[in-house]
């Protein structure tokens, strides 16, 4: 069945590539216009990763990646609900964006050089700094990933995870066996039933998938971070206006946090005389217009999904079942890596 879907996506790509004769069709900035005409944003997400993108019992999506697309919709339509989410497996995602099935992908996807330069996609911004790790059963009594010699690993196909694991075990002269599933749920289920000694993926996802295990407390996440996994949204290459919009959607939510603007104090803040806040609110300057949006674009974002801190705490933070600390994703002013260029 998956094969058919893959063929279908690929066929879309082929049709597009075959029949496009005019050389300008994809190069120029048309995505925003296309999205506005259509009336909703088409956003590719994961098939279900708590904290990032996961459907609830009523079929509505939540998570930090979901909120990213909602923020885009809020900026474009002043209505965060104008998004159509398409769940994509790790291996389908790039074909889906290349073939134009979605306008943007926000799917815990690592920005790597190969993906950026060979796949016809662009990564405008990093919305979560992550790194790969391992989860094992507590009763194995292992304290470090370096004790995993000879272990069997469960993971997902078509990920950076698969490659990093190979590099890590080889460079530490350890043996391993890898069992790579197409869907995350199956790889978690296989790990859960004992097929593998360790489950490996991005650290954030380890915490998320742990919740799906029969007895989450019987498993621990090993301390090693074996790779850099800068996760961010991606778009088709060649539309720099659309690139800008994606980038500044994230930066608006970071700037709001930096300035102490939240979804709750918008009214009060709109009366602020702080020039930086006035620019964010579109009271001074023409930032919105330059993006092709309304003056209020940033207010619309913050009003509907909140600033970056609010988004993080709501989906991943210490008060959620995932319980992830801000760490590298704190603002640069708090010792983290999240840093927005100035809005001016």
């Amino acid at each position, binding site marked *: 069945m998956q094969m058919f879907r893959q*063929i279908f996506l690929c066929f879309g790509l082929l049709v597009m590539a075959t029949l496009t004769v005019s050389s300008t069709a994809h190069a120029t900035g048309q995505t925003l216009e296309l999205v506005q005409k259509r009336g909703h944003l088409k956003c590719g997400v994961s098939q279900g990763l708590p904290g990032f993108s996961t459907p609830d019992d009523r079929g509505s999506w939540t998570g930090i990646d979901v909120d990213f697309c909602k923020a885009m919709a809020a900026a474009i339509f002043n209505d965060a609900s104008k998004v159509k989410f398409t769940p994509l497996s790790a291996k389908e995602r790039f074909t889906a964006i290349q073939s134009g099935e979605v306008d943007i992908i926000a799917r815990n996807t690592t920005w790597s050089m190969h993906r950026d330069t060979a*796949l016809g996609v662009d990564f405008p911004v990093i919305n979560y700094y992550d790194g790969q790790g391992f989860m094992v059963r507590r009763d194995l009594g292992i304290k470090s990933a370096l004790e995993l010699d000879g272990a069997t690993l469960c993971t997902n196909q078509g990920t950076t995870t698969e490659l990093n694991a190979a590099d890590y075990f080889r460079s530490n002269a350890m043996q391993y066996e890898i*069992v790579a599933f197409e869907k995350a749920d*199956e790889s978690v289920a296989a790990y859960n039933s*004992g097929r593998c000694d360790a489950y490996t993926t991005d650290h954030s996802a380890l915490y998320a998938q742990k919740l799906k295990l029969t007895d989450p407390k019987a498993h621990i996440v090993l301390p090693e971070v074996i790779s850099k996994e800068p996760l961010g949204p991606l778009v088709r290459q060649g539309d720099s206006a659309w690139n800008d919009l994606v980038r500044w959607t994230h930066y608006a939510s970071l700037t709001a946090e930096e300035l102490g603007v939240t979804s709750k104090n918008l009214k009060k803040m709109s009366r602020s005389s702080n020039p930086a806040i006035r620019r964010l609110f579109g009271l001074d300057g023409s930032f919105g217009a330059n993006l092709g949006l309304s003056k209020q674009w940033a207010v619309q974002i913050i009003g509907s999904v909140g600033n970056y801190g609010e988004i993080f705490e709501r989906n991943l933070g210490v008060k959620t079942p995932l319980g992830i600390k801000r760490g590298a994703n704190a603002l640069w002013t708090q010792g983290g890596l999240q840093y927005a260029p100035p809005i001016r």
Partner: protein
Amino acid sequence: MRSWLNRDALLQAIVLLAVVAGMVWLVGNVQSNLERQNINSGFGFLSERAGFGINQTLIDYTEDDSFGRVVVVGLLNTLLVSVLGIFFATLLGFSLGVARLSRNWLISKIAMVYIEIFRNVPLLLQIMFWYFGVLRNLPSPRQALSIGEAMFVSNRGVVVPWLEAGAGAVWYGVAFAGVLAGGFWLRRRALKMKLNTGQASRVWRPLALLTLALFAVAALLAGVPFTLDVPYLKGFNFRGGLTVIPEFVALLLALSLYTAAFIAEIVRAGINAVDKGQREASAALGLPESLALRLVVIPQALRVIIPPLTSQYLNLTKNSSLAVAIAYPDIVSVLAGTTLSQVGQAVEIIFVTMMIYLSLSLLTSWAMNRYNQRMALVGNAS
């Protein structure tokens, strides 16, 4: 008449030319469009380093090997599960088909229940069932069920002792091939002799002698280049021996059991298509029922059975691509799965994958058609 023929040929040539020109234009267009979108194109990736591990490889493979080798590894895995699947499905399917027609009420009903269940539950579900159902109930390697401390069953699969072949092992291969060839020759000679003179000739004694002689020569040339590799538990898992991974077992089981149900129905229909008089005549000649079935009914039924049986074989091969759901590294999983997403060239990779399935299908059809022709000829001669 003649001028018509020429016009036909001309017309066909024009159409062919148009098709070829169209293809060339399409390919060129695809390439330039992919290029404009900054998507890599071409088949250069096949010689690049793959960089990922595969947990079942019938030939030597490491992360340092190329994507091209990944294709071969995946193809062999597909062939392994398909060929064995076809073998078991045929065996079980024929037995079930015959059982379905049995005069014994219980046997016939059991066969019917089997057929109805396995035919009507979606295959993907059956694969998941065997995989997770069986996996969940197996112990970890440290608690593995052991058979004589040499064979172990755990949730990592079945580990069995294995003969590790050294450098001189080829000579044994040559000896084995010699025995096979000798066997065929002896059988042919015996048949000929029986037809010509009605006399039986010896087959087994010379064959045994030949076997002994050839292997003795191999041993003289190469010594004993085999070492027995017995698995042992070390750390997390077993080392040494041969591991049959659970993904393979589940997929093979599901494919065989599912396809057997369809084959059973085909066999039943085939047997029913043979004139009742044939059975009655065999009975009148005093042939016991089982012999009548084997010598009279089934050979005639085969002519009806083979064409639909062929399409079941093709189905099984194509269905083996569901492997990807349970992480069995077949061609779809390693090529259209991992390789595609690591390389990103969907058009080329899906094309290669489709060509591989097409070739497998054509090959199977061709072989089965040949077999069918042979069966038909035998029928006419009798």
